[in-house]
């Protein structure tokens, strides 16, 4: 097993619709063998002479050893790049980079783990669950979404998890409400020792808060933030930054792709995403006349 990512031409095995999402299985042995749960792949879209230069990043749902090593991702078709991917057929070729980013850190001892997912983000929790179960951990799921069609993997969660709780805003599946509404109850019932999360920012913020209220550590994947803001997936472009407290208490703008996507929930300044907090390292100084930082008209 090597820690360095690879660039590879992968063959599409299948692309299929799963509820409101697309699940794509790719033959990419070199990525499958290096992969650790929480890591992602960065896909070039549009073919060889494409006009779309931004890589699309997807957390990996599962890897299997069939066909020499396959990697499966789950995504929502939201823009021309993901539409192009959704339209691929078996045997099409894709340029992939992976596995990228930092994985979920695993507990050494068999503890009670709570895995919280929202929308397509729930997909990456299954690879994690697999590793945790193999280490003898108990694995409990909480999955949420606006309605039943946007909850990924509820049946699979019931099958492999020690418990699975679902919450939908419209009540079409499981409890009516948000993940936040059910979290305290589930933490109590499962005697969770650690909470893992992947999904929209609001969900991750709730996961972190509730876990913190219970004195539990949380690890969250900021995959969705990375997908909205990133361009390269490899850490060179610096476009996917978010404010994170360091061990030394200093806030730094870290890259969601290369310093994440898995971060300690309590380290992320959730309320300040999409801003540069005034006390962050290197933040523009006070916005008074003549001060530095106000005259950035252009910037390269």
């Amino acid at each position, binding site marked *: 097993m090597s820690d*360095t*990512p*690879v*660039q590879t031409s992968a063959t599409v095995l299948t692309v299929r619709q799963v509820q409101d999402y697309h699940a794509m299985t790719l033959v990419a042995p070199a990525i499958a063998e290096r992969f650790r749960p929480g890591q992602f792949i960065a896909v*070039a879209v549009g073919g060889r002479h494409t*006009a*779309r*230069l*931004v*890589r699309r990043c997807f957390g990996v749902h599962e890897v299997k050893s069939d066909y020499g090593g396959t990697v499966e991702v789950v995504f929502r078709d939201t823009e021309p790049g993901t539409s192009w991917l959704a339209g691929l057929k078996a045997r099409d070729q894709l*340029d992939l*980079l992976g596995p990228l980013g930092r994985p979920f850190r695993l507990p050494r001892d068999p503890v009670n783990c709570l895995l919280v997912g929202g929308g397509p983000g729930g997909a990456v929790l299954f690879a994690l669950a697999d590793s945790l179960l193999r280490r003898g951990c108990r694995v409990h799921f909480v999955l949420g979404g606006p309605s039943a069609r946007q909850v990924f993997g509820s049946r699979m969660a019931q099958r492999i998890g020690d418990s699975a709780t679902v919450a939908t805003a419209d009540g079409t599946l499981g409890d009516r409400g948000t993940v936040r509404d059910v979290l305290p109850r589930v933490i109590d019932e499962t005697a969770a020792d650690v909470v893992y999360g992947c999904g929209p920012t609001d969900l991750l913020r709730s996961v972190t808060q509730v876990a913190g209220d219970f004195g539990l550590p949380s690890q969250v994947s900021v995959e969705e933030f990375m997908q*909205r*803001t*990133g*361009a*390269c997936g*490899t*850490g*060179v*472009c*610096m*476009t*996917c*930054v*978010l404010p994170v407290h360091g061990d030394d208490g200093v806030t*730094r*703008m870290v890259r969601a792709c*290369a310093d994440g996507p898995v971060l300690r929930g309590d380290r992320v300044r959730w309320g300040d*995403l*999409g*801003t*540069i907090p005034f006390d*962050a*390292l*290197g*933040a*523009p100084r006070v916005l008074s006349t003549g001060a*530095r930082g106000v*005259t*950035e*008209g*252009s*910037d*390269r």
Partner: protein
Amino acid sequence: MSDRGSGERTAHDRTGHERTAGDRLRTSIGALSLPNPVLTASGCGGTGRELAQFFELSRLGAFVTTSVMPQARAGRPTPRVAETPSGLLTAMGLPGPGVETFLEHDLPWLIEQDVRTIVSVAGDGVEEYGDLSRRLRGVPGVAAIEVNLAAPNAGDRGGTFGRHPAAAAAVVRAVRAHARPGVPVLAKLAPDATDIVTIALACVDAGADGLTLINTMDGMAIDPHTLRPALTGVSGGLSGPAIRPIAVRCVYQVHAALPRTPIVGVGGIATGLDALEFVLAGASAVAVGTALFHDPTAGPRILRELDEALAARGIGSLADAVGLAHRPAGYVPPQVRPDELEKERT
């Protein structure tokens, strides 16, 4: 130019009849000799560590750092990037760790990789550029200094040093004055100036040993969902293949006016033929920027493709191709054979 081919000579070579592949691509920017002409563009290769996961940096002609500023800067809030047709629009706000951290952590690591390192500098005023240059003077391993003249000029709201010949010249003079003699100083210009040739002349007069052409060009995108500017910075710099024709034009015009000044061509280079285009226009080296976001191994690939493209045209060395497009009509340049053309298309 003096050490062309050192260490890679063949017996034939001394008689000038045949050159090795290593020799064919050797180039120079003033006093700086480079094993090959493919560089990274400033701000597009991270710290180097990220690309080094995919290939050995020493395969590059040189690594150009992100523009270093005196202090740490967090840059602008997200979203910092918007995808546009064949391009990217970015408004980063020059994020970086500041010169001290750069010298402590990033430069020594690059030197360890055995890659020539060109340090890009950006400042808030002429003094800051000068100070940075002085700060780099005693530091071993700085192969050249690239002066980012597209940094915002505090004295000119919304404008940049590179838009005005006098401001550009003042910055270049300050950097040249403090830089170690023998370390080339490159002035990097953006295309959105009234006349890029005038500015290039001013920079060379002020002591620039070479020019890097071009930086990004101001542009803007509006998000049809939010009905607001797509970038927090409202407008941003356009990069990628979308700006390549503009960059080639700039290189061609400046080479015509200053045929002896080395030029690093930048702007939308994604293939070996793109690189060749810049060389024919007058560039002695090329830098790859946005393509690295799409393909981290673009550097070595473009180098291989450029080498093949030169060979296919019967061009013995890169130096022979520099500025070839300026030959008068009627001159019959080396022609590519149809079968080689076919190979390039596939």
